[in-house]
């Protein structure tokens, strides 16, 4: 698996400045890559382009050598809004993508239960979305994304609509799940702390030039702890880069 982003630019209207300017980046197999930047730096646009929900103005994105032209299940997205379907129970929501793909019902059941256990929701499988908390909804959405066995998992600020406590617990769980599964993840966030906590590499986008300001490798051992001195140092370094950008 390789995801190559090549001189990618996006402009929404003629005469306007680029929202993204000549971004080049390669995401390695099994890598957890975080993209951080101040609001308006184009990080969500970048994710939408990789997801195929939007088309670039110039440049290209290649997944295993193939150019991305639209959305596809091999690049499943987890959004800030959970996007659970209110007419489906928790487990049916988790099965949704597999159902679209026409996977056999017994395998759907097996996989759905496997990932529901991974996010500790096996006891809530028959609940309706409105009966569970915001954090549980987002965990259901995570389980749903994991069932797709995507080549790359795209996450667009998945925890930022949650309260701090819930969001901290979820990123802890995500770290654990990632250590078990080693999925390739492209994770967008505005929180530098979250990026340092989760990522193998952090890509800082500049809000002024709309280019990559810097790519910072995070070589801290997992599981990571927010209060370690090294963690704090890295966090400040990246914050400085974003501020200058």
């Amino acid at each position, binding site marked *: 698996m390789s995801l190559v982003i090549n001189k990618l630019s996006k402009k929404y209207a003629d005469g306007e400045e680029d929202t993204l300017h000549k971004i080049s980046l390669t995401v390695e197999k099994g890598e957890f890559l975080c993209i951080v930047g101040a609001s308006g730096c184009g990080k969500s646009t970048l994710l939408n382009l990789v*997801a*195929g*929900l939007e088309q670039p103005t110039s440049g290209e994105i290649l997944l295993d050598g193939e150019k991305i032209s639209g*959305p*596809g*299940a*091999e*690049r*499943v*997205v987890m*959004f800030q*809004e959970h*996007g659970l*379907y*209110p*007419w489906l129970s928790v487990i049916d929501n988790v099965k*949704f*993508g597999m*159902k*679209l*793909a026409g996977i056999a019902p017994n395998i759907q059941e097996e996989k759905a239960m496997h990932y529901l256990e991974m996010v500790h929701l096996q006891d809530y499988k028959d609940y*309706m*979305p*409105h*009966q569970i908390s915001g954090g549980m909804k987002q965990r259901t959405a995570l389980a*749903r994304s994991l069932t*797709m066995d995507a080549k790359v998992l*795209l996450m667009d600020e998945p925890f930022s609509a949650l309260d701090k406590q819930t969001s901290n617990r979820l990123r802890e769980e995500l770290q654990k799940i990632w250590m078990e599964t080693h999925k390739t993840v492209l994770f967008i966030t505005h929180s530098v702390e979250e990026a340092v906590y989760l990522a193998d590499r952090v890509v800082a986008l500049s809000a002024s030039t709309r280019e990559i300001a810097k790519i910072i490798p995070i070589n801290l051992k997992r599981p990571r702890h927010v209060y370690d001195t090294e963690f704090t140092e890295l966090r400040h370094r990246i914050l400085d880069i974003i501020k200058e950008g």
Partner: protein
Amino acid sequence: MQLIIFLGILILIWQGAYWLGVEIFQTVKSYAVPSPLDVGKRFVELCNDGTLFQAIGNSLIRGIIGFVIAVIIGIILGLLLNHFKYLQKNLKPLVLGVQTLPSVCWVPFSILWFGLSNQAILFVVIMGSAFSIAISVDNAIKNVLPIYIKVARTMGASKQQIYTHVIFPACIPEWIVGLKQGWSFAWRALMAGEVMTTSIGLGQTLITGRDLADINQVTVVMLVIVIVGIFFDKYIFSIAEKKILRKRGLISENSYR
């Protein structure tokens, strides 16, 4: 229980007004204002000779057939309006306009085209409700949250799957409201249609009452029309609506709404 007492009070007020207006002061003639007792008597008579049941049966069958056809036409038209930008831009305003026409306005055409027949009544019913159903079908699709569609697309849903797995299920609550409204339009249009023809039905029974200057019969039929309308609203559409809204958490478990 509360409702029964309330209705009892209403009937008492009605009886009191009749007694004052017609019997004491004699300002109103008895052929213009019915008394609850006479209406009750006429009701029993109409039940006993079978007229009322036959009329209700005929009207219901006609109403349901017309409504079903209107639903089919409405859904197809609504989907077309939604799917083709050209139709959305040009035909939708027209449909909205035609929908505001009271259904009686279709009576002259229906008589010219179908004569004083069953089809003529069905035509009025269909014209009276199909357009409002089409509009609610279209509007409901437009109100589907974009995130629902985005999620499905990134999980590899085909265009057809987006309709069958996301848009249609998401629309169901709004469509039920649309059907409920469509039915009430159909029921009203049915009466407008039946009043003009001679086929047996509630509308025709009402007009017979008028022709015979039988205000009691007119009142009985009016009450029956209201009761049938309430029955469909409360026991068919509203129950389905509540069940679905509750399942989706849009109304709480113990809500009285």
